């Protein structure tokens, strides 16, 4: 099973993450899987675990809400505007990407 991915693919992930981080005001980025484990994180561990846990719950809740309202609909993105920053959650099938951005800097 030790099939190594092509270098380019792995590189592509890094590239994408780097690109987001390069933007102004981006505080951190966490990629979590559907179980809520932070797989990739640019923040310190405790905080990313926190984010992972809370966002997983929020995702489940909001997804179920959307489904309840219209079973054909699905959640595609969450933008949480808070006093301090904006949390962008981009859910995919098995993963979700959390980007924390500080918009006041922009």
């Amino acid at each position, binding site marked *: 099973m030790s099939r190594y991915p092509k270098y380019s693919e792995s590189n592509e992930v890094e590239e994408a993450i780097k*690109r987001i981080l390069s933007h102004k005001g981006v505080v951190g980025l966490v990629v979590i899987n559907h179980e*809520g484990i932070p797989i990739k994180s640019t923040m310190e561990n405790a905080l990313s675990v926190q984010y992972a846990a809370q966002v997983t719950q929020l995702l489940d809740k909001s997804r179920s809400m959307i489904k309840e309202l219209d079973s054909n609909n699905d959640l595609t993105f969450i933008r949480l505007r808070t006093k301090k920053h904006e949390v962008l959650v981009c859910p995919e099938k098995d993963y*979700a990407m959390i980007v924390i951005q500080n918009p006041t800097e922009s």
Partner: protein
Amino acid sequence: MDVTNMDNEEESKAPRPSFPESVRDSLDVGGVKPRGEGGGEGREATPKAPITTTIHRVQSEKFFEVTPINFEYHKRREEFGRQPQFLEDHSRIHVGLNEIEKLEDNYEEMMVVEETEDTYVDQRNNSTNTGRAEYKSFSLLHTEGAWPKEINIRDAEIVDKTKKKMQRDESFLDAVPSMAKEADYLVRYNNTLPLYSRYYRKCNSVRRRDTKPRANVVAVYRCPSAKKRPVSRITFAPESAGRMAVAYCPYEYDPMLREHSNEAFFWEVENPTRPEGLVRAPAQIVDVRYHPKDVHSICGALFTGQVATWDNRVGPNPQYMTPYEASHEDVCTSALWINSKTGTEFFSCGLDGKIIWWDERNLSERLDFTFADPVKGRSEAVHALPVTTLDYEHTLPTKFLVGTQFGQVMVFMKKGKTPMDRLINMYKAHKGPVRSIHRNPVFIKNFLSCGDYHIRVFAEDCRDSGIMWTAPSDALYTYANWLTGRPCGLVASRVDGCLEFWDLLIQGTTSMLTTKVSHHPLSTVCPSDAGTHVAAGTVSGDIRMVKLCESLHTFGKPDKTALAACFERESRREKYLEQRGREIRLAKKQKEGKAKNTGGDGAKFSFSEHGQEAKKSGKYKKPEPFKNPQLRVDKKFFVTIADEKKKQGINAFPDKKMAAKAFSQVMYKGRMAEKKKQMIKSNKTEDWTLGVEQVMSVNDETLKQANQDMDDVEKKRADAIAKGEDPENVQLKEIVEPDFPSGRLEEELPVVPMMEPNTELDTEDLEPEAEPEPEPAGCWLNLKSEPAAAEPEPEEDEENDAPGEEEDGEEADYLD
């Protein structure tokens, strides 16, 4: 043609389209007239049936076949998609009833009478409320989880390895770039367009301050125990910890006392559904206080006179409690922490008149005690007054204040060794128990006390009385305190469930705001440390958190100086009064001394003095008797009216218009009688000096006379007509003045202005409005300002102007 009768099934099931015999038979028997679409009418001439109460239904057989049980829908294939063909079908008979002649006799028309016998309208009063939802909130501690079972998350190496493995997963590698693309877009989007930023910040910078004070109930904390007990004390935890402690206890002896639970509750301000914690004691807890430095240690006063301390980290049971023999002999009403080196000392007061100091570490014996004896330097248990309330200000640690059951407020020195030093001053503040005493949070020299119907503000250096006090309120006060957020403001709770807010700077005469917060009497009130809220406790055991508007909890620097000036001014005024009072007393004493020395002379002197005083005080001078008797009577009349008005204002007359009318009517009659008299006895000009009453009595006579005359004339006229003469020839021997029944008054009135100018008296009579008696200003103004007072009747207006001055002069004479 299809006729279905709902009663008989078998017929309707019959084959179609031809009519089977059975159907027709049954129809005939049933008395139904079958109607056809086309030529059906031709067959109408069926014999009349005796009973015709069958309902029949006509259907278009083309599409439907209706049976009572099933309903089939037929449509040929070739007709699909065609437009429907509607048929004209105007007249239908749904119910046919033939008249039955023999029953016609029974026909009777009913009289419909609607009648209600009740004079009141039926009313119903319902109230519903949703059930009280009790919520619990839990917080969740999330520790890292969701890892596969075999992975030990404490082992960083393994965790790292697994993560790496996950990152190499193909789906991850696919997912991340697509997610990143989306996130990237939005991040850039956010950076480009600050959608949520506030534009036009300057425009909103001028905020309007609401001038009308408001206070709304935002939360209700209901006592969780089944038996309702009055709230006896609310205290907020120090350092704005968002907690409050509430003691529930009836002040008076309650026969059900033993059935009440003995708990005091701690509430989290944010969570009104259930208390955060509780402390309990073997008896009712009257008072409960947080330690000012430590939220966890609590001291409380018990109904048995004991004092107890708790540590709310340990449990609800008291840590220490005083033994009976050392504690108060009556209800302990208050316990307060005091400043000490160890921070473990507190003191308590009770209805036995004792004030006892305690050390938390050793409650079996008291540190010190004193009695609330109103006489300086005595301090005896026999004379001690029951103490209802205690106040101690931590910034002024040497003094404390005591309020007694009989309305005295005493200022005590804490450190005094002898009883002489202890009691500094005593004020006779109230006519009942002092409910609360509090020092002003900013100007600690000033304090308020609350009891009966008053709130009083004292300054310590004014030793005789308070410097300010409120007007008596509508209801008894139960508690008052300063507003922490606005030290010039007071909040007071009343037995009618209202909270009163006072502001010494804005309004001294009335309360700023009185709002009803509960249907039950309020028992206590406590402003929160932040000053934005006020918690009011009711006798039914619930606490109402009242949110104050901004004007009730903001206190600026100018306000502070203004308040200082206010206190300063009032105490100076009070001091002057005190000084003056002292001088007067001194003078009196001296005089008395003199009187004693001089003996009999002194008595005489004092007598004469009294006489002088009497003369001075008798400002009222008896008026000179009037020469004209008419005037005297008139004055009498006006004086009575004036008295009446003084007593009742314009209410003396139930209706002003009516009153005016009545006046004018009386006057008019009087004048007419006068005229007549003048006419009759024209030679006796000097003698017709009649007061109003006399005039009226004369008038009665003349009225009778006039009526009689009129009757005579009528009779004569009737006779003349009967005889066939001209009725105009009938003349009355005497000239009859017409009298004026009230209905005709309006028409007759225009006669009035045509009076001769020399009849002064008449014009005087006519003046009910231009009342010359000096009136209390308000009353008079009231009369004038009322638009209704200016009567629309023309003669009044005219006459109002003319004789006013004259009359004034006369009246002034009369009074002086």
